[in-house]
């Protein structure tokens, strides 16, 4: 690049726009070329205040720690104690979030079941119904009840260990699903009663109820059909967590699944993923406050999801009041999604390791988010299950390490008082003090 003109006068350094970045410009060029919005999988990629902005303080003179490896730190959790005759007992408070057969291959669903089972936790169906693979390999299976009702039938409902009424999803609060024609194989088409190869749109609202009063009656129907045996969860996106939690409790939920904007989806518009919803860190305290105001904290269990990656994230969620967490994207990565060994193939698809998110196109080199028989052969469900079990065990050990350091003999005993925040935003959202202070924005009595 020339730095001076012919007269020797220096050029100014070429300046990239902070508004029209290369990323943005590529979005504009893609839109201009295709006439359709960008569809992708995964959750929000933008940087948002997160659990990384919180730290545990650990023990000190005023609090003493528990001895690692010798003093017990319990991780069990029971979900559905409010109304269900058979609540779900989990060994660890990390569950596998709902992901559909269709979005994922049959072997990938099997691996999720195997891994969750070996770690003592539950897995969850998704849009498209329950497959024999996941029921057969998941001793604790949560059946999602979705607006589309694809594959929904009362036999599977009665086989479920819990029912999750999906009202919203963190990646797309207020939006429905989408499965492009490439992934509508014969089996997927049959399960969903749709022609093969068409773009399958899932509705954003349930077809037979609207609003909290109807939801209460819908829950009554589900309980009657299943004999009041299994817990009923309600999954909501991180939109208005205080009111949604309040209404879900009043409608009769046994548990609430709250999904922040980092939570993934199989496919939706990028603009939706990045611009609708709230970060996971921002939604937990209002939801816990709603439960406390109703006297239902720890009686109606709260399962938090959306960008949970490590035992530290688990511990922070628990400290802020969650009873359990759910993981989706992290579980897929544990199975082998976005693994560097497929870099050449990611490059051939116009992507790179860590950024591959065209799950809806069905060309996943790792054989996980595909219905292509040849690609599916690359994925071994037994090995995948073993990897997921290992990962869940590591997360649990990490969370226990932190809890013991805070002097807690159960993960549920972690509390907001164990935390400080690194940023003003995180302090305001988590309602824990900014590190080095005893203050957070909005603290009662502080005047700010």
């Amino acid at each position, binding site marked *: 690049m020339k730095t001076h003109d012919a007269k020797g006068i220096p050029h100014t350094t070429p300046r990239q726009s902070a508004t029209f970045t290369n990323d943005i410009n590529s979005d504009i060029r893609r839109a201009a070329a295709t006439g359709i919005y960008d569809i992708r999988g995964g959750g929000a990629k933008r940087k948002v205040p997160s659990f990384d902005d919180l730290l545990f303080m650990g023990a000190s003179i005023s609090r003493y720690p528990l001895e690692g490896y010798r003093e017990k730190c319990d991780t069990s959790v029971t979900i559905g104690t409010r109304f269900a005759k058979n609540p779900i007992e989990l060994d660890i408070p990390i569950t596998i979030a709902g992901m559909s057969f269709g979005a994922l291959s049959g072997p990938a669903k099997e691996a999720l079941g195997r891994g969750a089972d070996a770690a003592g936790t539950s897995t969850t169906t998704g849009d498209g119904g329950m497959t024999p693979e996941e029921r057969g390999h998941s001793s604790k299976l949560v059946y999602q009840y979705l607006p589309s009702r694809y594959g929904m039938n009362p036999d599977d409902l009665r086989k479920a260990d819990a029912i999750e009424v999906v009202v919203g999803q963190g990646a797309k609060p207020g939006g429905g699903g989408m499965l492009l024609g490439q992934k509508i194989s014969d089996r997927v088409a049959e399960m969903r009663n*749709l022609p093969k190869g068409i773009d399958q749109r899932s509705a954003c609202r349930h077809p037979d109820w609207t609003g909290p009063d109807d939801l209460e009656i819908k829950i009554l129907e589900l309980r009657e059909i299943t004999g009041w045996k299994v817990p009923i969860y309600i999954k909501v996106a991180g939109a208005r967590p205080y009111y949604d939690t309040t209404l879900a409790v009043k409608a009769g939920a046994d548990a609430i699944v709250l999904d922040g904007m980092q939570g993934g989806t199989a496919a939706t518009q990028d603009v939706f993923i990045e611009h609708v919803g709230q970060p996971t860190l921002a939604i937990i305290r209002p939801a816990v406050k709603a439960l406390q105001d109703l006297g239902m904290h720890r009686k109606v269990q709260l399962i938090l999801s959306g960008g949970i990656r490590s035992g530290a994230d688990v511990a922070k969620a628990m400290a802020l009041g969650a009873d359990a967490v759910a993981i989706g994207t992290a579980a897929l990565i544990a199975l082998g999604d976005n693994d560097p060994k497929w870099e050449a193939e990611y490059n051939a698809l116009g992507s790179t390791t860590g950024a591959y998110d065209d799950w809806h196109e069905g060309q996943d080199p790792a054989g996980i988010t595909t219905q292509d028989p040849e690609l599916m052969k690359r994925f071994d469900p037994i090995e995948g299950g073993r990897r997921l079990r290992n990962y869940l065990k590591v997360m649990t050990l990490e969370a226990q390490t932190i809890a013991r350091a805070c002097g807690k003999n159960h993960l549920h005993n972690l509390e907001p008082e164990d935390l400080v925040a690194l940023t003003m935003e995180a302090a305001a959202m988590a309602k824990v003090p900014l590190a080095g202070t005893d203050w957070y924005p909005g603290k009662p009595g502080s005047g700010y």
Partner: protein
Amino acid sequence: MQNVDLQEIGLRDLNAMLHEQSSDTNQTAWEIDNPKGAHAIACGLDAPIEVTVKGSTGYYCAGMNKQATVNIKGSAGPGVAENMMSGKVVIEGDASQYAGATGHGGLLVIKGNASSRCGISMKGINIVVHGNIGHMSAFMAQSGNLVVCGDAGDALGDSCYEARLFVRGEVKSLGADCEKKEMRPEHIEILTELLAEAGCDANPEEFTRYGSARNLYNFDVDNAAAY
């Protein structure tokens, strides 16, 4: 005949008794007195029994029905026979919103009128309405047959897939990607059979068939206005 007074026994015990019936039960006929608009009556049945509800029902009567025949001697609240898999549900009066929503199979007969969203997301169920149906009926209807002997409201068959919609009277408006279709002999045959099964003496030749124009099956920017 098993007679049950719902106000005396309560919903839970009623449904539990009905759920206990197996395929070889000899308690095949049930009458339910005093429904008084209760919700979730006779939902989740899975046996070849005949249940007659002597009055009007609330939400989700006969929801997810399999095998059973449920007769409602009154009107039905929202979501009657929702997600029905098989069997037959007959309503002597009118049906509220979402009748037969997402149903996979079986026959739903409404002798009066049906409100909005009748047959929404239907997935194989057959629905015969002797009277009229409300707006947005057969929205995203995937498969099965919706027969309307009277008129249909606005946006019939919006975004529907492969369901067949037969209307004898006027259609106020069609929804996105729904169009009038040719009535071929096989459609007359289907219609004749359904009308007979539903106890309706309407002439099949008087009906018009509607269905998907299939323009929205795969995204095309030139159809963006319809999305």
